[in-house]
C-alpha cells in the first residue's frame, strides 16, 4: 500500500450527499478478477454519455479537474455496496484524499486498506472547500496526515481526526494482514479455546 504523509493536490467538488458505491462504480464493471483497470469506470454513468462520449457537465471531465487528487463530497459518502472496486477506482483515477461530512462504514475500511485517506470535516467547512474548488480553478489543498491539518493558500487551517491505528498504517503504507499475522500464536490459542467452548456448550 502506498503511504501518504503530506499531500498537496487539486480539489474536485461533487455537490451531492449519499453518493453510493453504485455511482462510484456501476455493477457492470465489477467482473474483472484484477485489482487494476477500474479507474476508467469511475463515476461511469455521470462521466460518460450512453454512447461513450464524455459528459461535459461532469466535474471530472472539466480540464481544471482532470488532475484532481482530492475529492470533496456531501455526507454519507460511499454508502451501499461493500465493493472495494469503488476505492480501487478512486485511487486509480488519482485520488489520494476524500473529504466529506461523513462516510459509510465499509467504504471507510476499504479506503484505509488502499492508501486512500478519508477525512471527516464539519458541513460548513466542507461547503467552504467545495465553494473554493468551484471558484478558484484550480484550487489546491495541503493535507498533512502527520500533523492532522488541512490548509489552503487563502488562510484555511483545519485540524482533523483520524483513528490512530488507521493513521499509522496510512503513514507507513502497512499491510494489515502482515500486522495480524504477527499474532498468529494468539490466533491459534484463541481458536482452540473457542472451539472447545463451543463443542462443550
Amino acid at each position, binding site marked *: 500500500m502506498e503511504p501518504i504523509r503530506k499531500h498537496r493536490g487539486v480539489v474536485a467538488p461533487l*455537490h*451531492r*450527499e*449519499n453518493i*453510493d458505491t*453504485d*455511482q462510484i462504480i*456501476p*455493477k*457492470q464493471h*465489477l*467482473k*474483472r*478478477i*484484477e*485489482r487494476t483497470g477500474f479507474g476508467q469506470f469511475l463515476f461511469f*454513468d455521470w462521466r460518460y454519455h*450512453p454512447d461513450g462520449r464524455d459528459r461535459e457537465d461532469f466535474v471530472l471531465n472539466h480540464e481544471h479537474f482532470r488532475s484532481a487528487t482530492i475529492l470533496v463530497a*456531501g*455526507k*454519507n459518502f460511499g*454508502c*451501499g*455496496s*461493500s*465493493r*472495494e*472496486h469503488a*476505492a480501487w477506482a478512486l485511487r486509480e483515477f488519482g485520488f489520494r484524499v476524500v473529504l466529506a461530512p*461523513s462516510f*459509510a*462504514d*465499509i467504504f471507510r*475500511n*476499504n479506503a484505509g*486498506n*488502499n492508501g486512500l485517506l478519508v477525512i471527516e470535516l464539519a458541513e460548513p467547512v466542507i461547503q467552504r472547500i467545495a465553494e473554493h474548488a468551484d471558484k478558484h480553478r484550480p484550487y489546491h489543498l495541503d493535507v498533512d496526515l502527520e500533523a492532522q491539518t488541512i490548509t489552503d493558500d487563502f488562510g484555511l487551517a483545519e485540524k482533523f481526526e483520524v*483513528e*490512530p*491505528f488507521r493513521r499509522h498504517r496510512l503513514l507507513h503504507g502497512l499491510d*494489515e*494482514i502482515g500486522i*495480524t*499475522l504477527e*499474532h*498468529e500464536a*494468539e*490466533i491459534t490459542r*484463541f*481458536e482452540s479455546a*473457542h472451539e472447545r*467452548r463451543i*463443542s*462443550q*456448550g
Partner: protein
Amino acid sequence: MHKPKTLFEKVWDSHVLRAPEGEPTLLYIDLHLVHEVTSPQAFEGLRLAKRKVRRPDLTFATIDHNVPTTSDERFQIKDQIAAQQIATLRKNCEVSGVPLFDIGSGRQGIVHVIGPELGLTQPGMTIVCGDSHTSTHGAFGALAFGIGTSEVEHVLATQCVSQTKPRSMRIWVSGKLPGGTTSKDLILDIIRRLGTDGGTGHVIEYAGEAVRGLSMEERMTMCNMSIECGARAGMVAPDDTTFAYMDGRPYAPNGNAWTKAITEWRQLITDEGAAFDRELAIDGAKLEPIVTWGTNPGMSVPVTASIPNPEQARDASERAAMLAALEYMGLKAGTRIEDITLDRIFIGSCTNGRLEDLRAAARVIRGHRVRSDVTVLVVPGSEAVKRAAESEGLDRIFREAGAQWREPGCSMCLGMNPDILAPKQRCASTSNRNFEGRQGREGRTHLVSPATAAAAAVAGRFVDVRGWEYRN
C-alpha cells in the same frame, strides 16, 4: 453480579481475540461466506504473498451475482468476463479446499439465502462476507456484517477481522403488524425514519412484540436491509422460532449437540438493564405498505400517500437531493403513489427471494392475470427455494398469470447478469436498493414488499394490497 450485556455485546465479547488500547479489535470469525465478485482479488493477494486459506472448513462459497437466470444460459454463460470470474472462483475453491455450492449442485443460491437454509448460519456466530447484505444473518442472533475484498483476504489468511467496536441501537417495535403489511414495509419505514446514514457505526437489535411475531424469513428481510440505514449489522435474539427453523438443516448441530446448542443459544438475549447507545420505539400496529419514490431506500411513503414536495425538505441539501431524485425517477411532487404505472416487476433477491416471499406474491397473483404491458420476473433465491416452490405449485401460479419463472441468483437486484431495465423503464422491485442505475442505466426502481409487487403486476400500477381481492 455481572454487568448486564446486550445481545450484540455478548457475541462481540466472546470473539475478541485482541483489543489493545487505541487499536481496532481483532475479532475471530466463525463463518466466512464467499462469492465470485468480491473474492478473486483476495485469493490472488494470498497467492502473491504465499499465504494459505487458514480455515477452508469455516469458509463456504457459491455463485450468485453473475449467474444468468434462464435455464439454458446458466450453464453456458455468454458474458465472457462473467464466465471468467466464475471459473476463477471454481479454481480458487479447488486449490484452497473451500467447499463450493456450484450451479446445479442443488445447493447453489444467493449467499444470504443459502447460509441460513443450509444451517450454516447459527446463533452467536460471527459471520462475514464480501457483500453488504451479510447483515441478513443477524436474524439468527449472529453478528454478521459485510466487508471489502482486502478484508476478505485478511479473513482468508487469518480467520480474523480487524474492526472498531460499533455502538449499539435498539429498535423496539410494539404491537402486531396489520394484515397486508410485512417486515419489508417495517424496515422501509425504519430506514425512512433513520435516514440512509442514521444507523452508521451502529449494530441494531430489533426487538419487541412485533419482531417476536415475525417468522425467520421475515426477520431476515429486516436484518438484510439494516445496511440501508448505514448500520454495520442488524440482530434479532434467537428464540423458539429460530430453533424450529434450524432443526434438521444439513449443517445445524444434531443429537446431543443440538440440545446443548439450544441451551447455549437461549442465553443470547439482551439482559435486563443493559444499556444501548440509542433507542427507537415504533408502533408496529400503525404500519402501512410502503413504496420508495426516490433514489435511496430512505425516500419512501405509504402506498396511500403522494410524492412529497421538495419545498418541505429540512434543508437545502435535502431539497437538492429530492429534486435530483424526482428528475431521475421521472416523477412530480404531489403525484399519488397509486397513480404510478409500471413496466417491470422483480420478485426475488436476498431481501425477498425466499419461499415465504414467493408464497405471499403467489397468493396475491393467483387467479389473476399480469397486465399485458408489464413484464414480471420471479427469481427464487436458491435452488432449494425453487424446488420447494415448485413442489407447492407456486411456479404454475406465476406462469399461468403470465409471469416468468426463472432460475436462482441475484438477478435484477443489481443487474450484473443479463436481467436489467432498459433506460426509463419503471420497476416495482422486492430488492433492497433503488440507487440510480442499480437495475440498469436510467432504470427507475421502486422498492416494495412481495405482496405489493405482485399486486402491481396485476394492476400495472401501485395498489394498496390491504384491499386486495384474493382468488382461489
